[in-house]
């Protein structure tokens, strides 16, 4: 069985040996990067700089919450707002693999810039097993290029350290609980963020739509699960499908986009079953999204695909 205490002890002592100077960590504020940061912080203290990048594809108020978290954990941190840069880089890009690779490369370029300014040699990433498994390489087929693996540029100069490389999410959560980190139960959020929850071009306008829709899905499902109406899924969100369909809004023809509701149950993300959301909750989500996003969205669909054949995210 996976031994949490032994893992923590072993990891901290090998990090102390391996990291000679300063290190920076790609800090999204999710379970993986927070556990990673906490372990490295225990090993080398303030020689670790946590860098949080606002890509413009974060969820509602996410970067503010992440900043608060880095404050609470007393990390030595930097904030980089790169939303404009990201929007520009993804202009006209529709292919999901291209999106992922552009985002991955941009992350590294930003980290390299911080590294040069701060004289940092090591890049810490919270990569976990499914990230590199799905990214392929060698015998394995590429299912999707995770931004922190398949998206890494070949000429990267920073030395990569990935303390959670062999772990799955449920094991990372165990470590998080043992380190008493508040994020231990937070749902996964992909590095490329909302950009891969928009089918087709991830424009700023479309991002606003999916951001709002994701927020509604999250709040409604969290409320329902708190009231005991459903089990809290492993992951739950909205996907924007920019396919227009006809609707009717107050005796007037409407012609707007489609939003898909996605929620899955899983233990390790390697296989998933779609979550059963009670109909009245689906109803509430549907009404709220269409009433909030009015002329932009007039159709809601519910994704009932398992993994395999689907994956959790649509891209």
């Amino acid at each position, binding site marked *: *069985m*996976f031994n949490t205490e032994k893992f923590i002890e072993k990891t901290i002592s090998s990090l102390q040996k391996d990291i000679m100077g300063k290190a920076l960590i790609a800090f999204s504020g999710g379970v993986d990067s927070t556990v990673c940061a906490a372990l490295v912080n225990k090993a080398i203290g303030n020689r670790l700089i946590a860098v949080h990048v606002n890509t413009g594809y974060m969820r509602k108020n996410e970067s503010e919450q992440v900043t608060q978290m880095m404050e609470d954990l007393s990390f030595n941190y930097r904030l980089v707002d790169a939303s404009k840069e990201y929007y520009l880089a993804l202009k006209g890009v529709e292919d999901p693999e291209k999106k992922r690779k552009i985002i991955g490369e941009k992350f590294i370029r930003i980290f390299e810039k911080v590294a040069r300014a701060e004289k940092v040699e090591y890049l810490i990433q919270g990569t976990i*097993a499914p990230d590199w*498994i*799905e990214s392929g390489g*060698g*015998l*394995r*087929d590429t*299912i999707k290029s995770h931004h922190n693996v398949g998206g890494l540029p070949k000429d990267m100069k920073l030395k990569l350290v990935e303390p959670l490389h*062999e772990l*799955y999410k449920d094991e990372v959560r165990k470590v998080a609980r043992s380190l008493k980190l508040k994020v231990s139960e937070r749902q996964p959020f992909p590095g490329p963020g909302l950009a891969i929850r928009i089918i087709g071009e991830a424009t700023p306008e479309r991002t606003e739509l999916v951001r709002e829709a994701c927020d509604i899905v999250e709040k409604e499902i969290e409320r329902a699960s708190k009231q005991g109406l459903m089990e809290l899924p492993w992951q739950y969100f909205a996907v924007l499908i920019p396919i227009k369909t006809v609707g009717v809004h107050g005796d007037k023809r409407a012609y707007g986009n489609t939003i898909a509701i996605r929620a899955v149950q*899983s*233990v*390790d993300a*390697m*296989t*998933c*079953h779609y979550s059963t959301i009670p109909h009245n909750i689906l109803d509430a989500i549907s009404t709220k999204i269409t009433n909030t996003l009015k002329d932009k969205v007039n159709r809601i669909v519910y994704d009932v695909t*398992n*993994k*395999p*054949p689907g994956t959790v995210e649509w891209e």
Partner: protein
Amino acid sequence: MVRIYVIDNGGQWTHREWRTLRDLDVETNIVPNTTLFKELQKEKIQGLVLSGGAPRIGLNSNLGNCAEYLDKADIPLLGICAGHQFMARHFGGIVKPSKIPEFGQVELMLCHDDEPLFKGVLKKSIVWESHNDEVTVLPKDFVKIAESENCKIQAIRHKKKQFYGLQFHPEVEHTQFGEQIFKNFIQLCEK
């Protein structure tokens, strides 16, 4: 502690096989399928899992040195997905593209009551699948031990050796008796 290694044929779930074995307190390692059998013998392994593979390799490719393991091993072997297909092909069976490929949840039906690999597994249970190809003709030294509606050869066993092949994936969380099947395999390796 029993020592069982996982031969990596490039499957998405190779690492899951390793994890399941590790969680059951097996001494385990993932090794490339190019490893020579004598190197494995040096490590005194008591069992081998032949993992699933990259797309379509079960159909007509060589899986590294898997043929050598199948020829020389006198320890229990468990072939999963492409590993199972290769095992069947190696002993004279036929593998073809599935008429109806299976992905995700499928109902498995056991063919007999007293298969050691399926001890404690219900006659009908849920397994997870992910395959485009399947074994269509059983090799002569093998018996079929499980089936599903759309794939008649879901599991096979060698008549004399402790070789098993599974089309479904016992290593993933959603397979109902996956861990039980691994426990049974571990028991076979301990003997």
